[in-house]
């Protein structure tokens, strides 16, 4: 049963006939996102036992649980399209799929964590809002669930950063400033290569799976997040990012060859992530079989 959606494309349910590119695209988007949610969360887990109070620890644990929940929501979409959840991890361990650039790092300080989370969460919200307009409806619904939880994460990250900027000393506030500069560039990369000129030749745009260009999402995100950091008391260096009189944001784009090396597990925490996943899967395989065996 096909129904028109706002973009002029049709919306498809799992059981609808649909173009191969939509099915393939949805399968790829959902499984890549599942991997990144499920492994990306390790970056935050490293800070759970350092969360400095009872309520803060509850909030951070809720956030970590949500991230795994996002992985679950999109992994279910991928599973229905024929990608077993085990495959999502195996493809990563065998080198067929990659983590996004931001997950190859670890946070060095509590102050970096808050600012990094704020930049990451806000970018993810912009990206998911765009992708949720896509034509594969089960994926769009999963993203809407994710977006709702991301708004809690965003408020939590804002709170963490606000706490440092209010109560931290000069060194601690300086770390927020440094984190802003380091992570801003990383998120610009995370949102993908410039594609305004090539969007219309992108098959995913043509079939309605990718409603907006990377550049459009990037502009939307900068519009939203730069004023937030300014309000927190962070200096926004025009060398890094500046707004042209037209309202358009200008920024330096990175060396994409370097990014490619990073994503090919060449980052400071890449090996640690691979090892964790491999060990956890090996260690727990028999317990998973036990639960499935007697279910």
């Amino acid at each position: 049963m096909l129904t028109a959606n706002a973009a002029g494309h049709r919306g498809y349910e799992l059981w609808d006939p649909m173009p191969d590119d939509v099915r393939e695209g949805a399968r790829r988007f959902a499984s890549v996102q599942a991997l990144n949610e499920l492994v990306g969360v390790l970056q935050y887990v490293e800070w759970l036992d350092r969360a400095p109070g009872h309520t803060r620890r509850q909030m951070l644990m809720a956030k970590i649980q949500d991230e795994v929940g996002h992985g679950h929501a999109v992994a279910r979409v991928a599973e229905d399209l024929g990608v077993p959840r085990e495959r999502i991890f195996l493809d990563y361990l065998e080198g067929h799929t990659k983590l996004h650039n931001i997950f190859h790092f670890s946070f060095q300080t509590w102050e970096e964590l808050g600012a990094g989370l704020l930049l990451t969460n806000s970018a993810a919200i912009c990206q998911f809002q765009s992708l949720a307009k896509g034509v594969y409806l089960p994926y769009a619904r999963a993203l809407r669930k994710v977006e709702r939880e991301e708004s809690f994460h965003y408020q939590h990250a804002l709170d963490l950063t606000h706490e440092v900027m209010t109560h931290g000393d000069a060194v601690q506030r300086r770390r927020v400033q440094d984190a802003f500069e380091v992570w801003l560039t990383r998120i610009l990369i995370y949102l993908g290569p410039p594609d305004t000129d090539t969007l219309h030749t992108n098959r995913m745009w043509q079939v309605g799976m990718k409603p907006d260009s990377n550049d459009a999402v990037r502009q939307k995100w900068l519009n939203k997040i730069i004023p937030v950091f300014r309000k927190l008391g962070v200096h926004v260096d025009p060398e890094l990012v500046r707004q042209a009189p037209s309202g358009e944001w200008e920024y330096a784009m990175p060396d994409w060859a370097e990014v490619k090396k990073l994503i090919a597990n060449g980052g400071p925490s890449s090996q640690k992530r691979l090892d964790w996943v491999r060990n956890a899967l090996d260690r727990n395989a028999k317990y998973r079989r036990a639960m499935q065996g007697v279910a």
Partner: protein
Amino acid sequence: MPHIPTDTDVYEVFAQHGSSTPLNHVGSIVSPRRDTAWHLAKETYGRRDDLVTLWVVRRDDMIVPSAEDRGLLAAKTRMPHRQPGFPTARRRDRAAAAETAGSASQVRDSAPAAHRDEAPGAGEAGLADLWLALADDLFVLGNRLGERICDYIDVEEALAVGSIGQEALAHAGTILTLRGFDQPAVDAWFFDRAQEQWQVSRVIERITDWPSTVACGLVVAAAVTVLAEQTAQVETDAAQLSAIAAVREEQLVHLDHWRRWARALSDWPETRAEFTRAYAEVTELAGDVFGARPQGGPAGALPGDPAPAATLHERLAALVGGGPGSQLPEHPLPRTAGLGGSALAHSLAQGRVVRDAYAPGVFS
């Protein structure tokens, strides 16, 4: 507990009216045959509107909540810290409180956490003392379960463990609140005490792999439910009991969860020996669960009645003694302060890394 209804011929009908609107329950039908149910539902509920889809589910195949599960479904009340508005509201409340008290450090000084410096109370342990020691167990267990969220036993299990962990932390906090602690005092209790002042059970030291986590989770959930039932028997003030009743309700769910795991691990040939060993070791250490020593300070809203350790221990045995190769000692044993081993030492040190880098009171 959720139950499975038994009306074999009844079918529940769900319809979707537009592609962007959700599927809604619209009613039910009776159909003597499974293969006619969908068409009967269409003629009953689909005569007017264009439907995007129509789903028909046999009531017998559904798992639905019982009336007593309603509390478990109230996510906003149970877990306020997950709400988007929570961080902002908390910041505002704390700023207001700090203004009233003059400064954050005064808030901390006025808290009843001061009684950690008092000499341990003498004499018999009361129910309130048993609760306080269980709060230590719940706090450590909750943190260990938090780490398990990313252990990928399975994704659904990861989410369940995440909730059990957050609830254990919440219950640890509830117990302290019932004893009259305010939030800064709760934080001081869990983050600023030296390990020698903790009174964790010996079982906490044994949490290492998944089988021992299951066994330990089971023992702690059983202990909390036993103590909650005893407290309900002696406490007459219904208002004081609602917090304990809510803790008990959630811990019963945890107990069920761990029991299902215990059954699965002991039934499965590949894990049987390992789990039996872990269960024996954990239960052997569980004799001290109701052996708390008084730590002084007011009982708060918790009854200070003498704790009938032998009776409580018997009830614990009824809940955990039937497990594979249980080695629960016949009689209760006293708790010792300062246990928890290097795992607790590490966890306490980690908890102070950020905390100590800021002025006192910032994170309370």
